[in-house]
C-alpha cells in the first residue's frame, strides 16, 4: 500500500472517531441518574473513549484491507458456502434434527432449565414457520403478528376458563378465531403497498394490545387471566393428588410423581404442533396457492395480468399465518397458565420477523437455525438482556446489508420437469 493511501485512511479513521465521539459523547458519556429530587449526571468518559477507540481502529483495519468489498465478500462467501452445505444435506439435516428433538428430553444432561429453553425455542420456531408463510412466501411484511398470537392465547384462555372445555377443543377454536381476525384485518389492508402494510399491521398489533389492557370486563386488564387449565394427557391430569374419582398421569402409568412429566408432555405438544405447521407449509408451497404466493412476492402486476386474484391470494396467506399464530398462542396460554398483555408487545413481533428474515425468507430450515441462534444462544446471556437486543437489531441490519435474502436463501423449485439431476 502506498504512503498516500495510508495517510488517507488514517484521516478517514480519525473522521470516524470524530463522529463516534459526537455519537457516544452525550448519550454514553453523560449518564443521567435520579438522585433524590432531580436528575444528575454521572460522567462515563472511560467507556466513551473505549468505544471511540474501537471505532477508529475498526475503521482503520477495514481501510487497510484496501478494497472495502473484501469483508463483504468473505462474509457472503462463508454464508453461501454454509447454505450450500445445508442445502445439499437438507434431508439428512432435517431427519437428524427431528430425531434429536424427539430424544432430547431423555438425554442425560437435559434438566428442567434446558427443557424450558427448548420449549421456548420451539414456540418461536412454530411462530417463525407460521409467519414465514406471510413474510417469506407471500412477501407481506406483517409487523403485527403478535396480535394473532395474542388473539389465540386470549381466546384459548377465555374459552377454557369459561366453559372448561379441553385443550383439544379449545386449540382449534383459538386458531379459527385468530384466522378470523386475520381475515378481518387483511381484507381492507392487503391492497396496500408493502411498506404501508407493515405500518398498518404494526398499528393493528398495538390496537389489540391496548384493548387487552383496557377492556377489564373481559380480559381483566393488565392483571391478565389466571388459572388457565393445564393440558391433560388424554384426560389424565398431571397432578400429585388427583380429585375424587380421577386418575392422574403418574398413577395411571405407575410412576413416581414428578413435575417433569408435565414439562415433557408440553415439550412434545409444541414439537408436534410445530412439525404440523412445517409439514403443512411444505405441502401448501407446492400447491397452486403456494406458487401464487411466491409469484405475488415476485411481481404483483404480472400476477394480475395472468388472472391471479391478489387480494384473495394474500388473504389466504394472512389467514393461515394467523391461524398458526393462534395455535402457538393457545399453547403459550396453557403452558403459562397465566397470560397478560405484557407478553404481546411489538418487540415480540419484531423478534419473529427477525427470525424469518435472518433465517432466509421462505426457508424452513433457516427459521430453525435463526430461532436456535437468537433465542437459544442469547438465552445464556439472560442478564445481558439489553445488549442482547442491541445485537439482535444489529444482526438485522447486518444481514440486510450483506445478505438481503437471509442466510439460507437457496430456493428450490416447487416442481421439477426433469427430476432431481443429482
Amino acid at each position, binding site marked *: 500500500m502506498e504512503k498516500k493511501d495510508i495517510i488517507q485512511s488514517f484521516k478517514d479513521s480519525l473522521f470516524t472517531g470524530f463522529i463516534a465521539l459526537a455519537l457516544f459523547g452525550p448519550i454514553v458519556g453523560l449518564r443521567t441518574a435520579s438522585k433524590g429530587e432531580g436528575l444528575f449526571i454521572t460522567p462515563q468518559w472511560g467507556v466513551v473513549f473505549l468505544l471511540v477507540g474501537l471505532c477508529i481502529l475498526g475503521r482503520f483495519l477495514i481501510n487497510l484491507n484496501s478494497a472495502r468489498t473484501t469483508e463483504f465478500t468473505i462474509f457472503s462467501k462463508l454464508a453461501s458456502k454454509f447454505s450450500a452445505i445445508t442445502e445439499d444435506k437438507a434431508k439428512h439435516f432435517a431427519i437428524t434434527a427431528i430425531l434429536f428433538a424427539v430424544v432430547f428430553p431423555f438425554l442425560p444432561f437435559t434438566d428442567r432449565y434446558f427443557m424450558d429453553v427448548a420449549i421456548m425455542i420451539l414456540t418461536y420456531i412454530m411462530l417463525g414457520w407460521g409467519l414465514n408463510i406471510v413474510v417469506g412466501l407471500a412477501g407481506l411484511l406483517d409487523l403485527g403478528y403478535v396480535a394473532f398470537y395474542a388473539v389465540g392465547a386470549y381466546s384459548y384462555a377465555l374459552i377454557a376458563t369459561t366453559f372448561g372445555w379441553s385443550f383439544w377443543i379449545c386449540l382449534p377454536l383459538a386458531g379459527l378465531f385468530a384466522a378470523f381476525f386475520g381475515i378481518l384485518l387483511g381484507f381492507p389492508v392487503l391492497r396496500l403497498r408493502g411498506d404501508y402494510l407493515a405500518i398498518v399491521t404494526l398499528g393493528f398489533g398495538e390496537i389489540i394490545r391496548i384493548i387487552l389492557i383496557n377492556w377489564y370486563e373481559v380480559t381483566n386488564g393488565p392483571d391478565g387471566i389466571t388459572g388457565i387449565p393445564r393440558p391433560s394427557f388424554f384426560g389424565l391430569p398431571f397432578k400429585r393428588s388427583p380429585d375424587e374419582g380421577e386418575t392422574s398421569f403418574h398413577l395411571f402409568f405407575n410412576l413416581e410423581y414428578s413435575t417433569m412429566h408435565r414439562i415433557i408432555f408440553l415439550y412434545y405438544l409444541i414439537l408436534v404442533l410445530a412439525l404440523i405447521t412445517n409439514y403443512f407449509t411444505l405441502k401448501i408451497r407446492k400447491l397452486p396457492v403456494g406458487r401464487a404466493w411466491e409469484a405475488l412476492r415476485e411481481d404483483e402486476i404480472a400476477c394480475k395480468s395472468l388472472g391471479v386474484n391478489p387480494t384473495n391470494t394474500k388473504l389466504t396467506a394472512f389467514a393461515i399465518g394467523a391461524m398458526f399464530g393462534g395455535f402457538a398462542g393457545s399453547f403459550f396460554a396453557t403452558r403459562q397458565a397465566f397470560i397478560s398483555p405484557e407478553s404481546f408487545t411489538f418487540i415480540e413481533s419484531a423478534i419473529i420477523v427477525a427470525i424469518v428474515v435472518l433465517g432466509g425468507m421462505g426457508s424452513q430450515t433457516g427459521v430453525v437455525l435463526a430461532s436456535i441462534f437468537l433465542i437459544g444462544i442469547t438465552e445464556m446471556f439472560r442478564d445481558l438482556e439489553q445488549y442482547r437486543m442491541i445485537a439482535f437489531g444489529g444482526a438485522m441490519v447486518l444481514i440486510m446489508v450483506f445478505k*438481503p435474502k437471509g442466510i439460507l436463501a437457496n430456493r428450490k423449485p416447487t416442481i421439477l420437469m426433469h427430476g432431481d439431476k443429482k
Partner: protein
Amino acid sequence: MEYFIQQLVNGITLGSIYGLIAIGYTMVYGIIGMINFAHGDIFMIGAFVALISFIIFGLTGVALPIILLLVLLIAMLFTACYGWTVEKLAYKPLRGSFRLAPLISALGMSIVLQNYVQVAQGARVKPMQPLISGGLEFFKNSEFIVTVSYLQIFIVILTIILMGIFTYLITKTDLGRAQRACEQDRTMTALLGINVDRTISITFIIGSSLASVAGMMFVLYYGVIDFYIGFLAGIKAFTAAVLGGIGSLPGAMLGGLLIGLIETMWSGYVSIEYKDVAAFSVLIIVLIFFPTGFLGKPDIEKV
C-alpha cells in the same frame, strides 16, 4: 366551549411536535421512497440530548433564553450526527436492494437505538423540573379557565420559525432544488452532476435536526421521557405524514396538527385510555381510504 378551546390549544401544541417529526418521514420518503422506521428513535435521542444539556446548563445559572437557544443548537447538532450515521450504515448500502430490505434494516436500527439508549441511560423514566412556567389565562369569569402556558406559546412560535426557514431552504436554494430533482429521478439527477449521496445525507440531517427540536419540546412539555417514547411518537408522526400526503412538506405539518387535535379531542371527550387507539385507527382508515392523503400527489402505478 371553554373546554373545547383549551383542548384546541393543547392539540395545536402537540400537533406542532408531531408535525416537526413528520417532516423527517415525509422528506426521506420523498427522496428515497422508504419509511425510515428509526426516525421515531432519532426523535427520542434528540429528547435525551436536550435533557442532558438542560441538566448541564441548569447548573451554570445562565439566563433562560440563552439556555434554550444553546440546547436547541446542541440537540440539533448531535442528533443530526445520528441521522447521518444511520443513513450511512443501514440504508445507503441497500439502495436498489429488494423492496423490503430497507424497511427491515430500519426496523433493526430502531431496535438498536432504543436498547442502546436503555443501556447507556438506564431504563427508568427521566423526570425534569419545568423550566418555563406560568401562562396566560382567558375566560377568567367562566367556570372553566383556559390557560395558554408560555411554554405552549414558545413551542408554537418556534415551530413556525423553523417551518419558515425550512420552507425557504426547500423552495429557494440549490439544495432544495437538488432535493426535488432527486425525488423525481435519481439517476438523471446524478447524470446532471449533482451529488446524490450528499443530497440524501443532507435530507437525513435536516430531518433529524427537526426531530431533535421536537424532542426538546417534548422534554419541556411533558417533563418526563424514557427510551421508549420514540415508538409511539414515531407512529403518530408517520400517521401525520400519511394523512397530509406523504412526500408533501406542508402536508406533514397539516397532518401533524390534525393528529395532535384528534388525540387531544379524543382524550378530552371520548376516553383517555384509548387515545392511542384513536391515532392507530386514524392511521388505518387514512391508509385504506385516502392513501394519498390531503396534499399528496395521486399515485398511479406505471406499468
